């Protein structure tokens, strides 16, 4: 079991942190995926976990930090390609490379041959690494990580830039490793891969953890099937589809993206009305991730000072918290999801965050269940730490963290949080009544 607590990395003072307060657990028998775009801090997180970089936060592997492990290779296998595609010196042969590492790990050379078999490299074991493809390099690196028969694996983008065949092999290997009781933590950029491979998905965005969900929740909330249609008469088709109850949005110059209707039905509809189609394809899009507002520098949070480049957006976000859109909902106990359908109908799935934030309550499906107020709160939200910014509320009590629940001001007190102050007009009567 790997417990990750508060991993934070700030490269330069005053810059936004590369990683802020990442905290989650991985359990034996499960594949955990760390999902994020390029630059979201996935690799930084992994390097911090094995302490290849200096930073804040602690990672415990069965109760010990990586540095304190007596035989780290026997407990944690690490695959960090770190930008280099090669697994070793290009002049070495695969077998001698792996035997050399077996010497360093302290396992017999026989184990190296076993692993060559297991990673399907036995036939090329006598060849020099110079002649290896990226997929073979990656498998050899995996074999090196497995030399000590570790119980946990940390892999940084193991399937990036690999052929579908190799990717599939990696997936099945990692699944079977987890099924035999191992702990697996992989990072990936592709949401589709995360949903295929993982049992649990942790979403990162620009160094912040947005969500920690079981994969079923992840599929339900973050992945969204739609059909891409392209052709010369898309306006007409869009009208027809809207009549059928589908949701249509513009997608590029001569294309639309349709959700709610299957591909075959769209094709039939187009055929019946004599509409020419150039493309009709299923695809899965990622829902836009919500951008939680950040605590502004409060001067009380130690040396972690945040100054984001998105100050204006935060301002907007903060404003709409004061507006009755959110607070009204919370305090009056309305069903939070009540008006979301209408909202989303107007402005469909793949809106860019920049456009969607002001004025609309973006569905923050991403937020973790364990942040419900009756359980653990992030430490900077503990009562003594609470900055006066209202913005914080948005993180603690996002409406989407309560799928079917109702949020009242009383819940706030139960967690030890004071109600927002100054409270918006619409809220005040309620406060007095309590």
């Amino acid at each position: 079991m790997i417990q990750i607590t508060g991993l934070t990395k700030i490269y330069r003072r005053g810059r936004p942190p590369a990683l802020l307060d990442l905290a989650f657990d991985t359990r034996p028998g499960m594949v955990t995926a760390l999902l994020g775009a390029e630059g979201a801090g996935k690799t930084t997180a992994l390097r911090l976990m094995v302490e290849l970089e200096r930073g804040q936060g602690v990672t415990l592997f069965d109760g010990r930090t990586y540095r304190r492990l007596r035989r780290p290779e026997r407990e944690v296998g690490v695959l960090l390609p770190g930008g280099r595609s090669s697994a070793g010196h290009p002049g070495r042969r695969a077998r001698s490379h792996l035997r050399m590492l077996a010497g360093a790990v302290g396992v017999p050379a026989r184990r190296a041959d076993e692993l060559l078999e297991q990673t399907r490299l036995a036939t090329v074991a006598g060849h020099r690494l110079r002649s290896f493809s990226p997929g073979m390099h990656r498998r050899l690196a995996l074999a090196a990580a497995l030399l000590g028969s570790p119980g946990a694996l940390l892999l940084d983008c193991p399937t990036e830039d690999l052929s579908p065949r190799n990717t599939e092999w990696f997936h099945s290997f990692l699944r079977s490793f987890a099924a035999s009781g191992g702990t697996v933590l992989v990072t990936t950029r592709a949401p589709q891969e995360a949903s295929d491979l993982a049992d649990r998905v942790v979403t990162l965005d620009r160094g912040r953890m947005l969500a920690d969900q079981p994969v079923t929740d992840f599929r339900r909330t973050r992945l969204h099937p739609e059909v891409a249609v392209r052709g010369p008469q898309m306006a007409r088709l869009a009208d027809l589809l809207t009549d059928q109850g589908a949701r249509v949005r513009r997608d590029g110059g001569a294309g639309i993206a349709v959700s709610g209707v299957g591909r075959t039905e769209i094709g039939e509809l187009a055929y019946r009305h004599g509409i020419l189609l150039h493309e009709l394809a299923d695809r899965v899009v990622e829902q836009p991730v919500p951008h939680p507002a950040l605590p502004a520098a409060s001067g009380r949070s130690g040396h972690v000072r945040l100054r984001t480049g998105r100050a204006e957006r935060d301002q907007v976000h903060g404003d709409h918290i004061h507006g009755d859109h959110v607070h009204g909902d919370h305090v009056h106990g309305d069903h939070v999801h009540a008006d979301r359908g209408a909202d989303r109908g107007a402005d469909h799935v793949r809106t860019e965050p920049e456009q969607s934030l002001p004025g609309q309550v973006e569905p923050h499906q991403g937020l973790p269940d364990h942040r419900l107020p009756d359980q653990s709160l992030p430490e900077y939200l503990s009562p003594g730490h609470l900055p006066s910014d209202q913005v914080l509320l948005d993180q603690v009590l996002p409406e989407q963290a309560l799928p079917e629940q109702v949020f009242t001001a009383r819940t706030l007190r139960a967690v030890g949080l004071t109600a927002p102050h100054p409270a918006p007009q619409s809220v005040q009567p309620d406060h007095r009544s309590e």
Partner: protein
Amino acid sequence: MRVLLYEVRRLSGLRSTWFVLAAVLLADAAVAAVLARQLPAGPLSAAAALRSVTAVVPLLPLPIAALGAGALGALSYGHEVRHPGLAASRVACRRRLGLLAGKLVVTGLLAALLALGTVLLDAVVLRVSLAPGVRPGRLLALSVGGDPQALADGARPLAVFAVLVVLAGWTGLLTTSLVRSAAAGLLILCALPALLEPVLSLVLRLTGRGWPVQVRESLPFQYGLDAVRGADLPSAATLLDPVLLTAVLASFGLLLLAAVLAQARRRTL
């Protein structure tokens, strides 16, 4: 023990190791042959024989075998920097220091073997390709056997040579560990004698001593200077002259200390 096993397997699995060893021995043999051809007629002097056997050329900053040992040391560390096998398991400082110690041991042994091989090979080459007028006398009979006094006299400079080769190997390893690049480490190794030798010899001269004869013979710069000056050798001090020993050990100790401190500051090798 695991580190030694790893290091031996690493060295033997690389072509560059064998290439460097072969190149050094070949170059040594060639130099020895050329030097043997150029010897003046008459009885073979001990100094000349020593120079041919250790293949010291004034053009190069170090004897060829020492350069080879330095290259092996530099490549040994450069390999870890460029192609780290298990980068993550080298995070703990003591493991990195352990690896460094293992590398020092293996490089030292290999350098000593290289020195031995050089001497044996060159002795054979010298014997074979001596110029016609030169009488080897009893010098080359050393390896066959002879009186213990002559053996000691002949073996001491050879021991100095072996120590020089081992020190060069370690220096190559340690300088590379400081600059993290095999080429840069090797260049520094080549530059060091050019800087250190004159300074040390100045210090020694100020303290009223000269280089002991045995050391003189295996230092190319001294050899070159002697050749230019016409070589009036000062009286031979003992090899274990405290000042000289301190000077050599202090410079190497400083290097070792710097390397250890650098490891303490780092996360990777």
